[in-house]
């Protein structure tokens, strides 16, 4: 009996609150990997997006209507992501799409969005050529490796005063691309390249590579690696007693990385697109909001999901209607004040104007050394 009373009260309340949004809600489709190997990161990104929507709905929604997220699991796989996109567009009739996370999955969803003429925004996929495919409905609010390299090369050469740099990368598209980009940009600034080496995913023993590094007499080493490989490499680096300054790109400066690497992580530098310790009121407000909702500080992916969703919601508000073409045109006019800078888009849909951060790990926490704005590509 008690239970039914409760149910009635709740039903009454919901109908009251939905009267505030007399019209139908605006549906936005989100495709993220919710299962599989990158599920942890995909869920963080989704959490960020949900937070943005909750905040907006609490303030009265967009165009007087409530926002509703329709979430599908793309598993970071092209085929699953395409199925998810078809379902969202045909059955749920969403007015805009966000996500897909992995570059290959995003690339597969792009032609679908183009076919249905629905705006599609990714906050994560960083493969450089996504915005070079001539798509009219695709936007990216994520940093590309090219942008990171341009910004950080200057900092490395000028602020850290590096003269001779060695490069180590994981043996895949991303690792080789990172090493090539950074070495080219640093050489243009007069920094000498003394070594370039690659290792395979899942490699465990880096002594040979590090012996070579010691012999190269570099004063800085650039490393493109993910958590597992990077943490073992840094540990062995300290085991060999090397003093070279380490500078990493990839998922460094995360709690996982620092926990695995232990004391060996002290003093290393990492280039990241977002850090919860960024200064500024907007970021502080975002971190508090996120921490109160999820009991942890936002990382790179939480911030990416939050920013991407806010950009979409702003565009719908600016368009004044939910016509996909109007939203697309409004997206092009984006000038969004994010926790980490000011997002704008080029004609190709490439985001710029946001900050990227150089952090140094001290006392098991990433501290912001410097932040720099990405320039219009």
């Amino acid at each position, binding site marked *: 009996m008690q239970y039914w009373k409760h149910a009635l009260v709740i039903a009454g309340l919901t109908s009251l609150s939905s009267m505030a949004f007399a019209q139908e809600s605006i549906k936005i489709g989100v495709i993220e990997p919710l299962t599989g190997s990158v599920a942890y990161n995909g869920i963080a990104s989704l959490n960020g997006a949900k937070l943005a929507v909750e905040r907006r709905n609490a303030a009265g929604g967009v165009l007087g209507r409530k926002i509703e997220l329709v979430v599908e699991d793309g598993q970071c796989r092209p085929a699953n992501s395409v199925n998810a996109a078809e379902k969202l567009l045909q059955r749920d009739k969403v007015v805009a799409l966000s996500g897909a996370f992995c570059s290959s999955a995003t690339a597969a969803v792009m032609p679908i969005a183009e076919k249905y003429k629905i705006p599609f925004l990714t906050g994560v996929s960083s493969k450089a050529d996504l915005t070079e495919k001539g798509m009219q409905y695709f936007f990216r609010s994520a940093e590309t490796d090219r942008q990171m390299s341009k910004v950080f090369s200057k900092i490395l050469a000028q602020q850290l005063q590096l003269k001779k740099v060695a490069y180590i990368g994981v043996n895949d598209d991303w690792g080789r691309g990172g090493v090539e980009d950074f070495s080219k940009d640093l050489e243009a600034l007069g920094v000498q390249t003394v070594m370039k080496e690659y290792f395979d995913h899942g490699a465990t*023993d880096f*002594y*040979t*590579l590090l012996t*070579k590094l010691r012999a190269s007499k570099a004063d800085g080493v650039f490393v493109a690696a993910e958590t597992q490989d990077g943490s*073992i490499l840094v540990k062995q680096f300290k085991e060999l*007693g090397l003093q070279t300054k380490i500078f990493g790109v990839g998922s460094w400066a995360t709690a996982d990385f620092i926990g695995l690497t*232990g004391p060996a992580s002290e003093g290393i530098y990492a280039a990241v697109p977002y850090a919860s310790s960024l200064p500024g009121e907007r970021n502080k407000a975002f971190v508090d909001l996120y921490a109160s909702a999820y009991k942890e500080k936002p990382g790179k992916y939480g911030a990416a999901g939050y920013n991407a969703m806010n950009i979409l919601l702003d565009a719908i508000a600016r368009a004044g209607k939910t016509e996909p073409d109007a939203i697309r045109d409004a997206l092009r006019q984006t000038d969004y004040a994010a926790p980490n800078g000011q997002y704008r888009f080029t004609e190709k849909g490439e985001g710029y104007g946001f900050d990227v951060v150089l952090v140094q790990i001290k006392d098991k926490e990433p501290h912001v050394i410097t932040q720099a704005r990405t320039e219009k590509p």
Partner: protein
Amino acid sequence: MELFLQYLANGLVTGTFYALSALGLTLILGLMRVVNFAHGELYMLGGVMGWWATTRLGLDFFSGLVLVAVVMGAFGWLVDRFLIERIRDQGEEPGILLTIGLSIFLANTALLVVGTAPLKVEAPLSAAPLILGPVVVTKLRIFAVALSAVLIVAAWLVIQKTRLGRAMRATFQDPMAARLVGVRTANVYAATFAMGTVIASLAGMLLGSIYSAQVAIGGLVSIKAFVVVILGGMGSFAGAIAGGLLLGVVEALWGGYVATGWVDIIGFAMVILTLLCRPYGLFSKRAERA
């Protein structure tokens, strides 16, 4: 020269680790004629249990090692009695299918239970640099090499000097004759598989303390172990040691003087050469079952 010595030291250390990780595989292959594709997953389970014992249960490294040995030994025994038993003497294909299935089952179960994140096994010694003339190593690595040697010698002693070992060798040579003279061959097979499992899992825990334990590592470990076993000769103890050291040193020198990105090529090139020139491996006894 200084560089060469460091490369050599690196190679000998990783070579010892390769030998230890291949030992369980060569033992099961040599004594039981089972090509164990789940070898890498047994190694992985050792690492994951080592993480659980040292960080979750709060045991020290050695108690953890004993716990892993006991649990994995029992596990290996059960796998043999309940699974491998059913396909004994039916040729090699059912064994291959069974162990491949087992490897998929173990890897995915572990994935479900502990997830994809790399796990840390608490090490017994510090990993601070130790400078010996031109060569830098750590106490932890010297300890791991010593422990590997102890494990290898212990396994050899069990097989050569104990009653159980004699029964194992007798069963391998002729199971029918062994049964006729009163050897309980079912138990001997189970003991052999359990021993291989224990060695694989101890290798997983020991090396997990130096690198880190990871659920998805099984496939890579299996491949390296197969390279070592083919180089050294199936089922040969000396072969596993020589094959492991050879692979470690060659990889270190190749990585040092040519390119580290191409290091896996050298192992497979050596395997192809061995298969062409000495198809039974460097140390094979060429023993065929009657």
